[in-house]
């Protein structure tokens, strides 16, 4: 019967919300600091951020040699 279905769904939702409400949250200041710190630590090895020297770029165009 659809009423008992609705109640079952409502019970599940409450159960799920209880789990989510019980989550232990850290302070945003700590979360933000860690995000920033990760970016800083890895910036120098991020090719899209710092650029790729042509000699090390596996995708660079290999121009054919022209024999004059």
């Amino acid at each position: 019967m659809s009423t008992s279905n609705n109640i079952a769904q409502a019970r599940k939702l409450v159960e799920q919300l209880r789990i989510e409400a019980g989550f232990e949250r850290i302070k945003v200041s700590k979360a933000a600091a860690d995000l920033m710190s990760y970016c800083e630590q890895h910036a120098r090895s991020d090719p899209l951020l710092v650029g790729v020297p042509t000699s090390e770029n596996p995708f660079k165009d290999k121009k054919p040699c022209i024999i004059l």
Partner: protein
Amino acid sequence: MGEMEQLRKEAESLKDDITAARKAVQDLTLQDHVAGTAVVGRVQLKTRKTLRGHLAKIYAMHWGTDSKLCVSASQDGKLIVWDSYSTNKVHAIPLKSSWVMTCSYAPSGNMVACGGLDNMCSIYNLKAKDGNVKVMRELAAHTGYLSCCRFLSDSEIITSSGDCTCLLWDIETGTEKTVFAGHLGDCMSLGVAPDFNTFISGACDFTAKLWDIRDGQCRQTFGGHESDINAIGFFPNGNAVITGSDDASCKLYDLRSDQELITFQDSSIMCGVTSLAPSLSGRLLLAGYDDFNCNIWDTLKAERVGVLSGHDNRVSCIGVTPDGMACCTGSWDSFLKIWN
């Protein structure tokens, strides 16, 4: 008071508790924290390769772990495995159903998977002894379209579906191990955490959910978007989740503080986000849009620092190589482009 009414009240009360708990840890915003940081300089990436060969819209692409091979899926009914360095096609796999919406490359490089309106996830063995690529398994159980799939290993794969659920499969037996139910709308996209213990899903109920892979439990739910979430991915350290939506914005949600930290939007952008990928350090966020472009955002400052334009139709998929060397965009114009 009837039980239904009681449950409704309890749900509302718990939602208020969650909102209050999130606010209680908001001692500082991300914006405050990065106020002293400069925006990254203008990022100008060039198309290095164009992968030509598909005859219709490309819907999905996924890099192999070697950062060289990648797989793409098109509604021309083919999966193509490309050597992106040479642009050669390593495999061109004809599909039973051309209505494909997703593809995935196994971390081992031994298999690829795809699926779509056939509601199934088909697994292909690339390393069969006779050299022919053929279907290894057809994973059928979803009652809606397959929107996304990601291998955990050669023996397990996670799928998301228009039937509002995600499934963890045992590839060997071809059966479902775990159902992840809870979304109230089509699941559109999924991403696996770097440590493979959890995964995230984005759906048409405007929320993103974090799931424990082993016990099937939804641990966290993130709202805030005003329309369908089409794309989702983890920030490289696994502590944050980035979503892209039809509401024209991307959002970054921090997992440990359980809340949205930043929104990536601009009044000049009025079309939906189709796909996204962070750069290796996480400092750049590349996002594909319905307006044929891909915007590059400074993840910490939420400012646009670059644009990839070159496609003649919607950018439907984007992926950054595991080694961070390049990004690949796939489009409805039937081409894939490699940029760095």
